[in-house]
């Protein structure tokens, strides 16, 4: 199975919506790669514009936020915007249904931790790396001084989709 994990970026927000992830004006693009420069372009954190072009953002492979991640529109562009920026794990305390489904349909990971566990991630100091062990359902977060491990649950069908490389490949072989 594919390996997931790497440097993490933490976004201290609930309800990050699809319009913030990829504004509607870019929905006229018909290739995924064209979305690359615009990921999280309209995100507000603490009421201020988020620097979506920072070094930390470029390096990150994992994104951590709080609850109801990906609410709003059904645009899979929101998932692709992460995908084409090489971010293939999102960790949050909950996800909007369509966004979560779109993640697994693309064969990438939406990992749910409990709100208290997300708090613990936010409390860790310094640059963070997160690795995911899919066999054991474990998430390991590491900073220079600290190491924390959390287990998470994963729906068995979602896991199959990740293994199959997404829903289209799965459905094509089966139906």
């Amino acid at each position: 199975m594919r390996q997931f994990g790497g440097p993490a970026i933490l976004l201290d927000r609930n309800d990050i919506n699809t319009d913030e992830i990829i504004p509607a004006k870019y929905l006229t693009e018909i290739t995924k790669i064209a979305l690359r420069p615009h990921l999280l372009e309209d995100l507000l954190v603490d009421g201020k514009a988020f620097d979506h072009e920072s070094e930390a953002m470029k390096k990150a492979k994992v994104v951590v936020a709080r609850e109801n991640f990906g609410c709003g529109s059904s645009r899979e562009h929101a998932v692709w915007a992460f995908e084409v920026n090489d971010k293939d794990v999102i960790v949050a305390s909950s996800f909007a249904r369509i966004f979560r489904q779109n993640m697994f349909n693309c064969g990438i990971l939406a990992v749910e931790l409990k709100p208290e566990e997300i708090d613990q991630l936010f409390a860790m100091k310094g640059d963070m790396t997160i690795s995911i062990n899919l066999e054991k359902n474990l998430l390991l977060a590491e900073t220079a001084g600290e190491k924390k491990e959390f287990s998470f649950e994963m729906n068995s069908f979602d896991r199959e989709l990740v293994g199959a490389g997404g829903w289209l490949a799965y459905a094509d072989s089966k139906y």
Partner: protein
Amino acid sequence: MGKTIAEKIFDAHLREQVSAENMVLDLDVILCHEITTPIAIMDLVEKGMDKVFDPTKIKAVIDHVTPAKDSKTAMQGKIMREWARRHKIKDFFDIGANGVCHALFPEKGFIRPGYTVIMGDSHTCTHGAFGAFAAGIGTTDLEVGIYKGVCSFRAPKTIKIEVEGELGRRVAAKDVILSIIKQLTVNGATDRVIEFSGPTVDKMNMAERMTLCNMAVEAGGTCGICQPDRTTAEYLWPFIQGDYATIDAAVEDFKRWCSDADAEYAKVIKINVADLTPMVTHGYKPDQVKTVTEMAGTKVDQIYIGSCTNGRIEDLRAAAEILKGKKIAEGVRAIVTPATPLTYSMALKEGLIAIFMDAGFCVLNPTCGACLGMSAGVLAEDEVCASTTNRNFNGRMGKGGMVHLMSPWTAAATAVKGVITDPREI
């Protein structure tokens, strides 16, 4: 143990139980628009899977940006047209016949009680007003739907909202749903179907039920759903009269798709709307809702009446009732978009378009328009819009803009005064 509408629909469409929680369902209708479909088509073509499982079950429209505003949107339209032609998709609605998907498709009679419906659009939940299971999905689900006619969902847990009490003067279905979202919060219904029932909903017409179901997703809901009844049968009669001898027979048959009295719900919420007053959103989340009284006097720059939430003929009539013989306030601009060609021509015949124009409104062709800030009616930074749409996210109608969601009555009253205004005062 009895079953909910959603459970009955799932049972009747089950292709495969793929895990304890997940079911793959057969689909009755796949709806398509030009924002999310072309990229699905391109991907299917690229993968050598350019097929449609059943062209009669696919309905497509160009509605978000129409007529095209630039080369890229023109290309999206072109891909749709060529695809529809290539696969002999008869129900394809192009310029001249097109309108906002969630208003147009019901009007064509495509949605029936007991159906499973998907579309690459989050407000697909609107169609649950007909007693269907209708859910927004992403592009990959759309591709599989087009190609194989199936989609996977988790077992449908349902939140039942029982609404009772008579709505006061100029208090609309929009005010009811805004108050419900305030109570549920933006993720209070995530992974849940929201079943709207009770005497108030039973009395609502299809347009009002669609307004309720349309915003189910703003509370995270998978689908809104109403019990199909005589109102549903009467609305659908022109399309189903070949299937049933009488309307009564249709109503009787629809009972298959009603929830059992002993069905099990994840949650039951009872609300009484007798004292409800007009509502409006503030901030960037649809659960940030206040009464119009609390927000009265807030200055706006633009008024937008339209969309899949409130762009139907009933909505235009409501707004026109207030605008008749009046002018919009100085310093504001106002746009009205009849949601479909039929709505537009009815509004013309009924003299509503004249009322809007005399009041100083710009009348746009049927399209999503300002609703998602992609084409006509985009806001400038720091501008404020009073809108009958469903989503007030940061940047939704243009970067740096603020959107206040409200009913057509409240939007019209606001147009006349230039500030957020209680429609009962006009």
